[in-house]
Protein backbone atom coordinates (compact mmCIF):
# COMPACT_ATOMS: atom_id res chain seq x y z
CA UNK A 1 0.00 0.00 0.00
CA UNK A 2 1.42 3.38 -1.05
CA UNK A 3 -0.49 5.68 1.26
CA UNK A 4 1.92 8.58 0.64
CA UNK A 5 0.70 8.65 -2.99
CA UNK A 6 -2.96 8.98 -1.95
CA UNK A 7 -4.50 12.04 -3.66
CA UNK A 8 -1.44 12.49 -5.89
CA UNK A 9 -3.79 12.44 -8.88
CA UNK A 10 -5.18 15.80 -7.81
CA UNK A 11 -4.60 18.60 -10.28
CA UNK A 12 -4.63 22.32 -9.62
CA UNK A 13 -8.40 22.47 -10.00
CA UNK A 14 -9.21 19.88 -7.30
CA UNK A 15 -6.61 21.32 -4.92
CA UNK A 16 -7.86 24.89 -5.28
CA UNK A 17 -11.50 23.76 -4.97
CA UNK A 18 -10.73 22.09 -1.65
CA UNK A 19 -9.14 25.23 -0.26
CA UNK A 20 -11.98 27.35 -1.66
CA UNK A 21 -14.57 25.27 0.22
CA UNK A 22 -16.38 27.77 2.42
CA UNK A 23 -16.87 25.27 5.26
CA UNK A 24 -20.52 26.23 5.55
CA UNK A 25 -21.45 22.63 6.32
CA UNK A 26 -24.55 22.58 4.09
CA UNK A 27 -23.36 19.30 2.52
CA UNK A 28 -23.07 17.74 5.96
CA UNK A 29 -26.70 18.39 6.79
CA UNK A 30 -28.10 16.84 3.61
CA UNK A 31 -25.86 13.76 3.28
CA UNK A 32 -28.17 10.72 3.64
CA UNK A 33 -25.28 8.40 4.54
CA UNK A 34 -24.00 10.67 7.31
CA UNK A 35 -27.49 11.21 8.67
CA UNK A 36 -27.96 7.46 8.82
CA UNK A 37 -24.55 6.37 10.13
CA UNK A 38 -23.43 9.47 12.10
CA UNK A 39 -19.89 8.49 11.06
CA UNK A 40 -18.02 11.76 10.47
CA UNK A 41 -15.91 10.20 7.74
CA UNK A 42 -19.02 9.86 5.58
CA UNK A 43 -19.84 13.59 5.87
CA UNK A 44 -18.76 15.37 2.64
CA UNK A 45 -17.36 18.46 4.37
CA UNK A 46 -15.46 16.36 6.91
CA UNK A 47 -13.87 14.28 4.14
CA UNK A 48 -12.77 17.47 2.38
CA UNK A 49 -11.35 18.76 5.66
CA UNK A 50 -9.32 15.57 6.17
CA UNK A 51 -8.14 15.42 2.55
CA UNK A 52 -7.18 19.10 2.65
CA UNK A 53 -5.04 18.20 5.66
CA UNK A 54 -3.23 15.52 3.63
CA UNK A 55 -2.68 17.91 0.71
CA UNK A 56 -1.40 20.65 3.04
CA UNK A 57 1.05 18.22 4.61
CA UNK A 58 2.35 17.38 1.14
CA UNK A 59 2.68 21.03 0.14
CA UNK A 60 4.40 22.15 3.34
CA UNK A 61 8.13 21.43 3.49
CA UNK A 62 7.76 20.37 7.13
CA UNK A 63 4.53 18.43 6.60
CA UNK A 64 4.36 14.90 7.91
CA UNK A 65 3.43 11.71 6.06
CA UNK A 66 -0.23 10.68 6.07
CA UNK A 67 -1.05 7.93 8.53
CA UNK A 68 -2.24 4.61 7.10
CA UNK A 69 -5.10 4.55 9.56
CA UNK A 70 -6.26 8.07 8.64
CA UNK A 71 -6.09 7.36 4.89
CA UNK A 72 -8.03 4.11 5.37
CA UNK A 73 -10.75 5.93 7.29
CA UNK A 74 -11.07 8.52 4.49
CA UNK A 75 -11.16 5.76 1.86
CA UNK A 76 -13.88 3.91 3.78
CA UNK A 77 -15.93 7.12 3.94
CA UNK A 78 -15.38 7.65 0.21
CA UNK A 79 -16.72 4.18 -0.60
CA UNK A 80 -19.73 4.52 1.68
CA UNK A 81 -20.87 7.52 -0.38
CA UNK A 82 -23.72 6.67 -2.77
CA UNK A 83 -22.71 9.42 -5.26
CA UNK A 84 -26.28 10.73 -5.06
CA UNK A 85 -25.04 14.31 -5.53
CA UNK A 86 -27.13 15.97 -2.81
CA UNK A 87 -23.95 17.59 -1.47
CA UNK A 88 -23.35 19.14 -4.89
CA UNK A 89 -26.96 20.34 -5.18
CA UNK A 90 -26.72 22.39 -1.96
CA UNK A 91 -23.13 23.62 -2.28
CA UNK A 92 -23.22 27.44 -2.52
CA UNK A 93 -20.11 27.27 -4.69
CA UNK A 94 -21.79 24.70 -6.97
CA UNK A 95 -18.64 22.62 -6.45
CA UNK A 96 -18.66 19.44 -8.56
CA UNK A 97 -18.42 17.19 -5.51
CA UNK A 98 -19.48 14.02 -7.35
CA UNK A 99 -16.53 14.51 -9.68
CA UNK A 100 -14.29 14.97 -6.65
CA UNK A 101 -15.47 11.77 -4.98
CA UNK A 102 -14.86 9.82 -8.19
CA UNK A 103 -11.39 11.29 -8.50
CA UNK A 104 -10.64 10.44 -4.85
CA UNK A 105 -11.86 6.88 -5.32
CA UNK A 106 -9.60 6.54 -8.34
CA UNK A 107 -6.68 7.57 -6.17
CA UNK A 108 -7.74 5.25 -3.34
CA UNK A 109 -8.02 2.41 -5.83
CA UNK A 110 -4.59 3.06 -7.36
CA UNK A 111 -2.89 3.32 -3.96
CA UNK A 112 -4.38 0.09 -2.65
CA UNK A 113 -6.87 1.74 -0.30
CA UNK A 114 -9.94 0.37 -2.06
CA UNK A 115 -12.15 -2.09 -0.24
CA UNK A 116 -11.37 -5.79 -0.64
CA UNK A 117 -14.52 -6.74 -2.64
CA UNK A 118 -13.60 -4.15 -5.28
CA UNK A 119 -10.29 -5.87 -5.93
CA UNK A 120 -12.21 -9.12 -6.26
CA UNK A 121 -14.45 -7.42 -8.84
CA UNK A 122 -11.40 -6.31 -10.83
CA UNK A 123 -10.04 -9.86 -10.74
CA UNK A 124 -13.41 -11.14 -11.99
CA UNK A 125 -13.45 -8.59 -14.81
CA UNK A 126 -9.90 -9.42 -15.82
CA UNK A 127 -10.64 -13.13 -15.87
CA UNK A 128 -14.15 -13.32 -17.33
CA UNK A 129 -15.09 -9.75 -18.41
CA UNK A 130 -18.09 -9.68 -16.10
CA UNK A 131 -18.53 -8.67 -12.46
CA UNK A 132 -19.90 -12.07 -11.33
CA UNK A 133 -16.89 -14.14 -12.50
CA UNK A 134 -19.22 -16.32 -14.58
CA UNK A 135 -17.71 -17.82 -17.76
CA UNK A 136 -17.55 -15.25 -20.54
CA UNK A 137 -18.65 -17.92 -23.03
CA UNK A 138 -22.02 -18.12 -21.26
CA UNK A 139 -22.79 -14.41 -21.62
CA UNK A 140 -25.29 -14.94 -24.45
CA UNK A 141 -26.77 -18.09 -22.92
CA UNK A 142 -29.97 -16.21 -22.01
CA UNK A 143 -30.69 -15.88 -25.74
CA UNK A 144 -30.71 -19.63 -26.42
CA UNK A 145 -33.86 -20.80 -28.18
CA UNK A 146 -35.00 -17.25 -28.80
CA UNK A 147 -35.05 -15.21 -31.96
CA UNK A 148 -32.06 -13.06 -31.08
CA UNK A 149 -30.09 -11.74 -34.03
CA UNK A 150 -26.31 -11.46 -33.98
CA UNK A 151 -25.42 -9.48 -37.09
CA UNK A 152 -22.38 -7.67 -38.44
CA UNK A 153 -24.49 -4.57 -39.23
CA UNK A 154 -27.75 -3.26 -37.75
CA UNK A 155 -29.54 0.01 -37.00
CA UNK A 156 -29.79 -0.69 -33.27
CA UNK A 157 -27.52 -2.46 -30.84
CA UNK A 158 -29.02 -3.88 -27.66
CA UNK A 159 -26.26 -3.67 -25.02
CA UNK A 160 -27.43 -6.29 -22.54
CA UNK A 161 -24.94 -5.77 -19.68
CA UNK A 162 -23.76 -8.09 -16.90
CA UNK A 163 -26.87 -8.07 -14.73
CA UNK A 164 -29.32 -8.97 -17.50
CA UNK A 165 -26.96 -11.49 -19.03
CA UNK A 166 -26.16 -13.48 -15.88
CA UNK A 167 -28.69 -12.79 -13.12
CA UNK A 168 -31.53 -15.35 -13.24
CA UNK A 169 -34.68 -13.24 -12.71
CA UNK A 170 -33.24 -10.27 -14.61
CA UNK A 171 -32.66 -12.39 -17.73
CA UNK A 172 -36.41 -12.04 -18.31
CA UNK A 173 -35.88 -8.28 -18.77
CA UNK A 174 -33.39 -9.01 -21.56
CA UNK A 175 -35.81 -11.48 -23.15
CA UNK A 176 -38.68 -8.99 -22.91
CA UNK A 177 -36.57 -6.25 -24.50
CA UNK A 178 -35.71 -8.62 -27.36
CA UNK A 179 -39.40 -9.44 -27.83
CA UNK A 180 -40.29 -5.74 -27.99
CA UNK A 181 -37.56 -5.02 -30.54
CA UNK A 182 -38.71 -7.95 -32.68
CA UNK A 183 -42.34 -6.90 -32.40
CA UNK A 184 -41.42 -3.37 -33.46
CA UNK A 185 -39.70 -4.76 -36.54
CA UNK A 186 -36.43 -3.08 -35.59
CA UNK A 187 -33.25 -3.97 -37.43
CA UNK A 188 -31.28 -4.82 -34.31
CA UNK A 189 -28.56 -7.02 -32.92
CA UNK A 190 -26.70 -7.88 -29.77
CA UNK A 191 -22.92 -7.72 -29.72
CA UNK A 192 -21.10 -10.91 -30.57
CA UNK A 193 -18.40 -10.26 -28.01
CA UNK A 194 -19.93 -7.98 -25.41
CA UNK A 195 -18.03 -7.31 -22.17
CA UNK A 196 -18.92 -5.41 -19.00
CA UNK A 197 -19.65 -1.71 -19.65
CA UNK A 198 -17.25 -0.79 -16.83
CA UNK A 199 -19.72 1.33 -14.84
CA UNK A 200 -18.93 -0.50 -11.56
CA UNK A 201 -15.27 0.29 -12.17
CA UNK A 202 -16.03 3.95 -12.82
CA UNK A 203 -17.91 4.20 -9.53
CA UNK A 204 -15.24 2.34 -7.60
CA UNK A 205 -12.24 4.19 -9.03
CA UNK A 206 -10.86 1.56 -11.38
CA UNK A 207 -10.87 3.97 -14.31
CA UNK A 208 -7.79 2.34 -15.83
CA UNK A 209 -9.58 -1.01 -16.19
CA UNK A 210 -12.81 0.67 -17.28
CA UNK A 211 -11.08 2.23 -20.26
CA UNK A 212 -9.86 -1.21 -21.40
CA UNK A 213 -13.42 -2.59 -21.27
CA UNK A 214 -14.82 0.45 -23.06
CA UNK A 215 -12.30 0.01 -25.86
CA UNK A 216 -13.25 -3.66 -26.22
CA UNK A 217 -16.94 -2.77 -26.52
CA UNK A 218 -16.25 0.06 -28.96
CA UNK A 219 -14.20 -2.31 -31.15
CA UNK A 220 -17.05 -4.83 -31.03
CA UNK A 221 -19.51 -2.17 -32.21
Amino acid at each position, binding site marked *: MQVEKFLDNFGRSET*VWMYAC*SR*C*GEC*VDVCPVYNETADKYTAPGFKIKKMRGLITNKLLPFGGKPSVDGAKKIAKGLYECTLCGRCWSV*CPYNYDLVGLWEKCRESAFETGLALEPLQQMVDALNAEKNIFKRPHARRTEWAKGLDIPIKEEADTIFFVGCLLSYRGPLKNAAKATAAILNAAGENWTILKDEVCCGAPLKFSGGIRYQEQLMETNIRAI
Partner: protein
Amino acid sequence: MPQAKEVPEKKYPPDVDYSTVLKGMNRVSLLDTTFHTMMGILLITGLVIDLLGPWLGGWLHPIREYAHGYIGALFVLVFAAYIGSVLGKRKTRTVFTVTNYVDLVFYIILIVTGVTTASINSPWIEWFPGIANVLSPLVVYAPAIHVVITYIWIAFSIIFPGGLLHGLASTYLIAHLKKKTKIVKTREE
Protein backbone atom coordinates in the same frame (compact mmCIF):
# COMPACT_ATOMS: atom_id res chain seq x y z
CA MET B 1 -53.95 13.06 -21.46
CA PRO B 2 -51.84 14.96 -18.88
CA GLN B 3 -49.37 17.43 -20.33
CA ALA B 4 -45.76 16.27 -20.16
CA LYS B 5 -43.86 18.13 -17.46
CA GLU B 6 -40.87 20.01 -18.75
CA VAL B 7 -37.73 19.19 -16.80
CA PRO B 8 -35.14 21.98 -16.80
CA GLU B 9 -31.74 20.87 -17.95
CA LYS B 10 -29.03 21.14 -15.29
CA LYS B 11 -25.68 22.08 -16.67
CA TYR B 12 -22.75 19.79 -15.93
CA PRO B 13 -20.02 20.66 -15.08
CA PRO B 14 -21.65 23.53 -13.21
CA ASP B 15 -20.86 27.13 -14.07
CA VAL B 16 -19.68 29.25 -11.18
CA ASP B 17 -19.15 32.98 -11.04
CA TYR B 18 -19.15 35.65 -8.36
CA SER B 19 -22.92 36.12 -8.52
CA THR B 20 -23.66 32.42 -7.93
CA VAL B 21 -21.22 32.33 -5.03
CA LEU B 22 -22.69 35.46 -3.45
CA LYS B 23 -26.26 34.21 -3.94
CA GLY B 24 -25.24 30.86 -2.47
CA MET B 25 -23.55 32.48 0.53
CA ASN B 26 -26.60 34.66 1.17
CA ARG B 27 -28.88 31.67 0.90
CA VAL B 28 -26.79 29.72 3.39
CA SER B 29 -26.26 32.52 5.89
CA LEU B 30 -26.68 36.27 5.68
CA LEU B 31 -24.62 36.54 8.86
CA ASP B 32 -21.75 34.68 7.19
CA THR B 33 -21.83 37.06 4.21
CA THR B 34 -21.94 40.12 6.48
CA PHE B 35 -19.07 38.80 8.60
CA HIS B 36 -16.86 38.09 5.58
CA THR B 37 -17.68 41.37 3.82
CA MET B 38 -16.88 43.41 6.93
CA MET B 39 -13.71 41.44 7.56
CA GLY B 40 -12.62 42.10 3.97
CA ILE B 41 -13.25 45.84 4.35
CA LEU B 42 -11.38 45.94 7.67
CA LEU B 43 -8.41 44.01 6.28
CA ILE B 44 -8.13 46.20 3.20
CA THR B 45 -8.58 49.49 5.06
CA GLY B 46 -6.16 48.31 7.77
CA LEU B 47 -3.49 47.51 5.19
CA VAL B 48 -4.14 50.82 3.41
CA ILE B 49 -3.69 52.74 6.69
CA ASP B 50 -0.54 50.83 7.60
CA LEU B 51 1.17 50.68 4.23
CA LEU B 52 -0.03 53.84 2.51
CA GLY B 53 -0.59 56.04 5.57
CA PRO B 54 2.05 58.70 4.76
CA TRP B 55 0.65 59.19 1.26
CA LEU B 56 -3.03 59.36 2.17
CA GLY B 57 -2.95 62.96 3.33
CA GLY B 58 -6.43 64.15 4.29
CA TRP B 59 -7.93 60.72 3.54
CA LEU B 60 -6.13 59.03 6.40
CA HIS B 61 -8.46 60.34 9.10
CA PRO B 62 -11.81 59.37 7.48
CA ILE B 63 -10.47 55.97 6.46
CA ARG B 64 -9.19 55.28 9.97
CA GLU B 65 -12.21 56.68 11.79
CA TYR B 66 -15.11 55.65 9.58
CA ALA B 67 -14.08 52.85 7.22
CA HIS B 68 -11.89 51.09 9.78
CA GLY B 69 -13.09 52.36 13.16
CA TYR B 70 -16.87 52.42 12.96
CA ILE B 71 -17.12 49.37 10.68
CA GLY B 72 -14.76 47.68 13.15
CA ALA B 73 -17.15 48.54 15.99
CA LEU B 74 -20.04 47.00 14.06
CA PHE B 75 -17.83 44.02 13.24
CA VAL B 76 -17.42 43.32 16.96
CA LEU B 77 -21.19 42.88 17.25
CA VAL B 78 -21.42 40.78 14.07
CA PHE B 79 -18.48 38.65 15.23
CA ALA B 80 -20.21 37.86 18.51
CA ALA B 81 -23.27 36.66 16.65
CA TYR B 82 -21.15 34.82 14.05
CA ILE B 83 -19.03 32.93 16.56
CA GLY B 84 -22.19 31.86 18.38
CA SER B 85 -23.76 30.69 15.15
CA VAL B 86 -20.64 28.77 14.04
CA LEU B 87 -19.95 27.02 17.32
CA GLY B 88 -23.61 26.33 17.96
CA LYS B 89 -24.18 24.22 14.85
CA ARG B 90 -23.09 20.61 14.44
CA LYS B 91 -22.54 21.01 10.69
CA THR B 92 -20.02 23.84 11.06
CA ARG B 93 -18.25 22.19 13.98
CA THR B 94 -17.87 19.10 11.78
CA VAL B 95 -16.10 20.96 8.99
CA PHE B 96 -14.10 23.48 11.03
CA THR B 97 -10.37 22.79 11.26
CA VAL B 98 -7.84 23.65 13.97
CA THR B 99 -6.69 26.50 11.71
CA ASN B 100 -10.21 27.95 11.71
CA TYR B 101 -10.31 27.92 15.50
CA VAL B 102 -6.87 29.58 15.63
CA ASP B 103 -8.27 32.17 13.17
CA LEU B 104 -11.04 32.89 15.66
CA VAL B 105 -8.43 33.43 18.40
CA PHE B 106 -6.62 35.89 16.12
CA TYR B 107 -9.90 37.76 15.55
CA ILE B 108 -10.47 37.98 19.30
CA ILE B 109 -6.98 39.44 19.83
CA LEU B 110 -7.56 41.90 16.98
CA ILE B 111 -10.92 42.91 18.43
CA VAL B 112 -9.55 43.43 21.95
CA THR B 113 -6.56 45.46 20.73
CA GLY B 114 -8.74 47.36 18.23
CA VAL B 115 -11.27 48.35 20.87
CA THR B 116 -8.43 49.31 23.23
CA THR B 117 -6.82 51.51 20.57
CA ALA B 118 -10.12 53.17 19.69
CA SER B 119 -11.04 53.68 23.33
CA ILE B 120 -8.62 56.61 23.63
CA ASN B 121 -10.80 58.64 21.26
CA SER B 122 -14.15 57.45 22.52
CA PRO B 123 -15.91 59.62 25.07
CA TRP B 124 -18.20 56.76 26.09
CA ILE B 125 -15.29 54.92 27.65
CA GLU B 126 -15.49 57.29 30.62
CA TRP B 127 -19.01 56.04 31.31
CA PHE B 128 -17.55 52.64 32.11
CA PRO B 129 -14.67 53.17 34.57
CA GLY B 130 -14.23 49.41 34.91
CA ILE B 131 -13.44 49.02 31.20
CA ALA B 132 -11.20 52.09 31.26
CA ASN B 133 -9.17 50.62 34.12
CA VAL B 134 -8.76 47.31 32.32
CA LEU B 135 -7.84 48.89 29.00
CA SER B 136 -5.53 51.68 30.16
CA PRO B 137 -2.40 49.55 30.72
CA LEU B 138 -2.90 48.03 27.26
CA VAL B 139 -3.35 51.32 25.40
CA VAL B 140 0.38 51.85 24.83
CA TYR B 141 0.95 48.44 23.28
CA ALA B 142 -2.44 47.83 21.66
CA PRO B 143 -1.81 49.52 18.26
CA ALA B 144 1.46 47.68 17.76
CA ILE B 145 -0.05 44.34 18.79
CA HIS B 146 -3.02 45.00 16.50
CA VAL B 147 -0.79 45.55 13.46
CA VAL B 148 1.70 42.78 14.19
CA ILE B 149 -1.04 40.23 14.86
CA THR B 150 -2.69 41.16 11.54
CA TYR B 151 0.49 40.26 9.65
CA ILE B 152 1.00 37.11 11.71
CA TRP B 153 -2.60 36.15 10.91
CA ILE B 154 -2.02 36.76 7.18
CA ALA B 155 1.11 34.58 7.18
CA PHE B 156 -0.52 31.88 9.32
CA SER B 157 -3.67 31.89 7.24
CA ILE B 158 -1.75 31.41 3.99
CA ILE B 159 0.78 28.82 5.19
CA PHE B 160 -1.91 26.77 6.87
CA PRO B 161 -5.21 26.68 4.98
CA GLY B 162 -6.96 29.41 6.92
CA GLY B 163 -9.38 32.18 6.08
CA LEU B 164 -7.13 34.19 3.80
CA LEU B 165 -6.00 31.20 1.72
CA HIS B 166 -9.66 30.24 1.37
CA GLY B 167 -10.38 33.73 0.03
CA LEU B 168 -7.44 33.64 -2.38
CA ALA B 169 -8.39 30.15 -3.59
CA SER B 170 -12.00 31.26 -4.18
CA THR B 171 -10.88 34.29 -6.17
CA TYR B 172 -8.45 32.25 -8.27
CA LEU B 173 -11.02 29.59 -8.95
CA ILE B 174 -13.81 31.90 -10.01
CA ALA B 175 -11.42 33.85 -12.24
CA HIS B 176 -10.26 30.67 -13.99
CA LEU B 177 -13.46 28.67 -14.17
CA LYS B 178 -14.51 29.76 -17.64
CA LYS B 179 -11.31 28.34 -19.05
CA LYS B 180 -12.06 24.95 -17.49
CA THR B 181 -15.58 24.89 -18.96
CA LYS B 182 -14.19 25.60 -22.42
CA ILE B 183 -11.82 22.61 -22.19
CA VAL B 184 -14.68 20.30 -21.21
CA LYS B 185 -16.81 21.52 -24.14
CA THR B 186 -13.97 20.86 -26.57
CA ARG B 187 -13.67 17.30 -25.26
CA GLU B 188 -17.38 16.71 -25.75
CA GLU B 189 -17.19 17.98 -29.32
